[in-house]
């Protein structure tokens, strides 16, 4: 649909004019659907190469009033998460995202402000993948619900220290071993969440559950 929508403009102005938009490698525009803790969530068409923070602040109205940015999922829930720090100098194009070890993916940007529980956010994501798994092949059918229960145990306060390694162990058994990429889509955010926000998982362990208030968050 996104491609089709670009065609009238390209016909009217010519391919060259379209190619001039964006960066030399990521040409043209993309539709970004931004949600989460921003003042003006919605779908925006912007030139590729626009700095992420410019997009959040100038187009999406900035992070929810009074909140600091905590993290951003830049391309749909299956891509590795970016910390606020990483967001500072990243642009909305394929290369910049790849440099940060993540992807532009579907262009569904999820913004999380301070006060968001990263563990709970991952729990919601893994629950989604567990629910979405079709059950056709083993690693995904058995792995996604296991991941969900493991992450949930951090929230519930039933996790133990070795469960962080266990999450990685399950991820290894799933990653790249399935028919379709749904298992990978569950593994990529999980690994990045734990890598970048390990402290928060440890904090959950120490606290014996989630230190954040109950729903709704932030």
């Amino acid at each position, binding site marked *: 649909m996104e491609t089709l929508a670009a065609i009238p403009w390209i016909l009217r102005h010519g391919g060259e004019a379209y190619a001039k938009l964006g960066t030399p490698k990521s040409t043209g525009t993309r539709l970004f659907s931004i949600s989460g803790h921003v003042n003006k969530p919605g779908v925006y068409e912007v030139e590729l190469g626009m700095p992420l923070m410019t997009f959040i602040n100038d187009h999406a109205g900035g992070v929810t009033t009074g909140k600091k940015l905590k993290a951003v999922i830049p391309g749909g829930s299956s891509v590795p998460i970016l910390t606020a720090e990483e967001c500072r100098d990243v642009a909305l194009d394929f290369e910049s995202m790849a440099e940060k070890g993540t992807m532009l993916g579907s262009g569904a940007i999820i913004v999380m402000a301070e006060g968001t529980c990263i563990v709970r956010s991952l729990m919601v994501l893994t629950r989604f993948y*567990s*629910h*979405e*798994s*079709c*059950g*056709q*092949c*083993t*690693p995904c*059918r*058995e*792995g*996604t*619900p*296991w991941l969900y*229960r493991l992450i949930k145990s951090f929230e519930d306060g039933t996790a133990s220290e070795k469960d962080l390694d*266990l999450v990685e*162990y*399950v991820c*290894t*058994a*799933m990653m*790249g*071993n*399935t*028919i379709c990429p749904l298992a990978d889509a569950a593994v990529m955010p999980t690994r990045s969440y734990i890598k970048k926000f390990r402290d928060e998982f440890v904090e959950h362990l120490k606290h014996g559950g989630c230190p954040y208030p109950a729903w709704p968050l932030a």
Partner: protein
Amino acid sequence: MATVTLTIDGQTVTVPAGTTVIEAAKTIGIDIPRYCYHPGLSVAGNCRICLVEVEKMPKLTTSCSTVAAEGMVVHTKNARVKEATRGVLELMLTNHPIDCPVCDQAGECKLQDYYMEVGRHKSHFTYEKTHKPKVVELPPHLMFDGERCILCTRCVRFCDEITKTHDLGLIQRGTHTEIDTFHHRGVDNGYTGNLHEICPVGALLSKDFRFKKRVWWLKPHKSVCPHCSTGCNIFVDESDGEVSDSARGRTRTSTSIGSATKAAINTNSSTPKTAFAAPRTKGSNGTPMAWDAILHGVAERLTKAAQGDGRVVGIASPWLTNEELFLFRRLLTAAGHADVDFRLDDSHTKTTVREDDVLKRADKNPNNSGAALLGLRGTKDARTLLNEVVETGASLLYVLDAHRYETLGLADALRSAAAKAGYVVMHATHDCAVLEAADVVLATPTFAEKDGTLTNYENRVQRLRRAIRPRHDSRTDLEIFVKLLTLAGADVPPIVSASEAFNWMAAQVPALSGLTFGGLPEQGVVVKP
């Protein structure tokens, strides 16, 4: 034929183009683990246990779905593959009940096999397992356990592709996925024996065999299914002299279906519904008699007949082995002029007629082809011969497999004929009312209790093997004929085994010339009548 050469675990192998990696590996003795893969079914690639590393491919790939290519370098046992395989196996076992002590599959379960081979892990899974329906009856022959199921879909594909009855399907999704029938119907497609056979785990099991026996007590004997003219190669499982109800089997590779199928042995002919027949004579008032005395009596009658004492009528049976049929004909020849035939009904006209697109043929006897090939066909079929005896009498009426006459609708004809015949000999494995009409009953063993050869619809001569000792006081038809021929002074070598009988027969029957019993290949040999 175009071929490709590839390297698997350092060994170079050349295979026909189009061969999958898993099959190519098999040709050099490398057994890649598999659950969903079965050579007789389409490739599903869902179990993921057969992952291998192919150089220059970024991810591991399933060897069941990867076609071998020229110059391909495959690793099936390196650290990366081992880690993935162990991972898949652990995931597969997370929601498995691991109830091996009460599972009939234990001992021949691929989960156990590969756990010992590549797993041997301590499970990291500590949560409540997913619960699914257990002890589900799928009438008439199957038991299903959803928790043991690894969802490889072999059974689903079998019903879709082989029987084309589409009995089974997948319902729900994700971790709740289950195998089920539509609206909890049973599965009765005539090949249900194959379903518990192709299930690599203990999810689909034989209801008859349930909790009967540990499989490691079973001794498989190669044999041939006697239930139709196709003559599928099967294993007859025996334990403590009894034949297991789960007569397991594999098909001949000469069928295009591959080894996925076997004719369902739902009614195991080795298991008697009625009592076994006992050797006896009319004079003994039904009490069993010593074999020697009986056989001497019969031999005397045969000698008399040979001396011209009236008409001799012999009716063979398409359930006898080639050797037995050959000897029966010889016996009747020794008795002088004799009418002989094997056609108990019109089944011999249907020997090559398929009953479905799978395995079954319309001729429900195992050896009509053999009987025809060995010249047992006379000018009149069994019914006509019996009716003739009713009209004109006979000095000797010799009937084989008399226990089959009731079902064939020939019992009354036999009774009437017996009443008019001077002397009536009947062979039977099981007791039945019609035996009352015989002067002599000679008890014979069932198919699982004797050696020999059978000839199937395409004139393939195949070995039948004795799985168990005869359970009743019986003599094989072969033994009886040799003994009678010897007593009657016929020129017959002292045959004691099916092997000797076959070799002796092969030397005299042009179609079998050059064949030896010991030299018969695994899949038998097709002969030209």
